[in-house]
């Protein structure tokens, strides 16, 4: 188990380093003089000089990356010229909001996707299976920003039950917070739930068709116990590892969802930064997203290892 985790960790480090290189290299895509481009709307020569100095633009690329990476490791993600704030501060401010949204959405996805997947696998070929597959197809095909708009149309404009936008920190009022997060979390969780349903269904079908499930049936095990005790724990491993890959989808989707519902999170920060040509912030957000994604995947690996007796004992 420890060995397994050590190996996973050893793989995560070069991944993050390479990802940071890619993100850093994005700067090179900017047309014209990098410092001028980085300054965004500002044309103040002083600012441009500051940027040139800050990013060591007079030095060769690998050296620049070195300075930048050292800064990132020390928690310095650069300065938002536009907002006159350090990017780390901005991220620290917005990250919790996005994480809350992502966690709630994942809960929604699990709560819908996993039971539906189990049901459709156990009742394969019946109307329940057809229905679950239909729901999953709908979830996969509906763009979540459109779903968000439709929900606002229904629940805010028509019915007036839920706020169309805004965010209330849970410290202020947990109830208002949840009310504000309900629609975004559902919209975001909807697409993931479809994927979770498909993964669950496939994993369960695989396990239900296995020899050891046949052995259990030959022992006279009841259908409920068969599913809960024999099939699900073994299906859990692929569900967890494949589900973890959906964190990326979750973080991608958060950008859109936050935009629609004006949730002041990571995604909103990034999109605003893009329009303000606030490139340091864009880079900072992307690298934090990558780190979050890798971290979440690592956590899922731990969970999967804990479920797997072959690894638990090793």
């Amino acid at each position, binding site marked *: 188990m420890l060995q397994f985790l050590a190996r996973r960790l050893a793989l995560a480090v070069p991944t993050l380093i390479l990802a940071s290189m890619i993100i850093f290299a994005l700067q090179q895509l900017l047309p014209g003089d990098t410092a001028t481009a980085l300054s965004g709307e500002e044309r103040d020569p002083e600012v441009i000089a500051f940027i040139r100095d800050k990013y060591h633009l007079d030095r060769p690329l690998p050296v620049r990356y070195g300075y930048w990476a050292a800064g990132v490791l020390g928690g310095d993600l650069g300065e938002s010229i536009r907002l006159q704030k350090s990017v780390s501060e901005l991220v620290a401010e917005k990250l919790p909001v996005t994480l809350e949204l992502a966690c709630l959405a994942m809960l929604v996805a699990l709560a819908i996707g996993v039971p539906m997947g189990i049901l459709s696998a156990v009742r394969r070929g019946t109307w329940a299976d057809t229905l679950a597959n239909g729901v999953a197809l709908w979830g996969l095909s509906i763009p979540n920003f459109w779903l968000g708009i439709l929900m606002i149309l229904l629940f805010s404009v028509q019915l007036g039950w839920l706020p169309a936008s805004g965010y209330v920190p849970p410290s202020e009022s947990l109830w208002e917070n949840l009310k504000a997060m309900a629609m975004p979390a559902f919209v975001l969780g909807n697409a993931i739930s479809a994927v979770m349903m498909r993964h669950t269904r496939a994993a369960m079908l695989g396990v239900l068709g296995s020899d050891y499930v046949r052995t259990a049936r030959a022992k006279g095990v009841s259908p409920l116990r068969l599913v809960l005790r024999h099939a699900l724990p073994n299906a859990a491993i692929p569900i967890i590892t494949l589900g973890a890959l959906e964190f990326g989808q979750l973080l991608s989707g958060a950008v859109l969802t936050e935009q629609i519902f004006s949730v002041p999170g990571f995604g909103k920060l990034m999109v605003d930064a893009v329009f303000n040509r606030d490139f340091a912030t*864009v880079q900072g957000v992307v690298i934090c997203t990558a780190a979050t994604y890798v971290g979440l995947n690592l956590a899922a690996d731990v969970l999967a290892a804990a479920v797997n007796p072959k690894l638990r004992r090793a």
Partner: protein
Amino acid sequence: MSGIDRDGAALLPSPTVVEGRRVPLPREPGTLRAFWRRLRARRSAVVGLVIVVGLVLMAVFAAWIAPYDPTETDWGAVRAAPSLAHPFGGDEVGRDVLARIVYGARASLGAGLVSVALAVSLGLPLGLVAGYAGGWVDGAIMRLTDALLAIPFLILAIALAAFLGPSLTNAMVAIGLSATSTFVRLTRAQVQALAAEEFVEAARSVGNPPWRIALVHILPNIVPAILVQATLTIAAAIIAEASLSFLGLGQQPPEPSWGAMLNVAKNFLDQAPWMAIWPGLSIFLAVLGFNLFGDGLRDALDPRGRT
């Protein structure tokens, strides 16, 4: 693997088995006609194919189908409700929504096809090399795709669009690059699975050089999986293009794009909801079509897969 009788093993344990080894089944990978028959037998796949073909025709013949020029403004039709003259209504500056939907298909399908073509043409060779060569080449390619995968799809696309500047072309490039790692990984996994198969070893045993094994023995066997993944990725790419356009990072006004139409529409939800309904429905249909077709394709190409 000692003389295992396949009776029990083949007929029983899972749905896959019935197609298993012993019972001769019409798995005819060699004949297109058989594939077409299996595809047609799946109603949802046919529905998907009809939607896809319909949309492609609409995009190609947009000029003949659209009742108006998609960028022509008409002050009398500003946020006009659907009527005979404007069946889908008018938008915020009085352009015909139907015309924009018809022309918008070009941006959506174009982005879907071009970005996936880019992703496949980059990912397939890289995956083949990684899977077949192994060693440090494989390691390097895999770490690179890991790194790309660590940056979520849309986030990477947004970042690329930000640094490249917003345009439909850049959005396509961004989506294509973000989708590349999927194809590298899929190809590599398929190649590795096949390389362990006895027929690849048999190919070596008769004296096939490596390039011939990769191209003649492995490639044709992974084409189906790539095709299926490509179809499903087109669906995802259409959503991605719409997302970027929705955020203002894709197709630039006044050129029509479904995502951009939704972006504007969300400001007029209470006054002109139809502005939001039609483009959203179009995206939904296009994505649904490719998803249905892709699922059907998978089932028809590999009967051992899902039912």
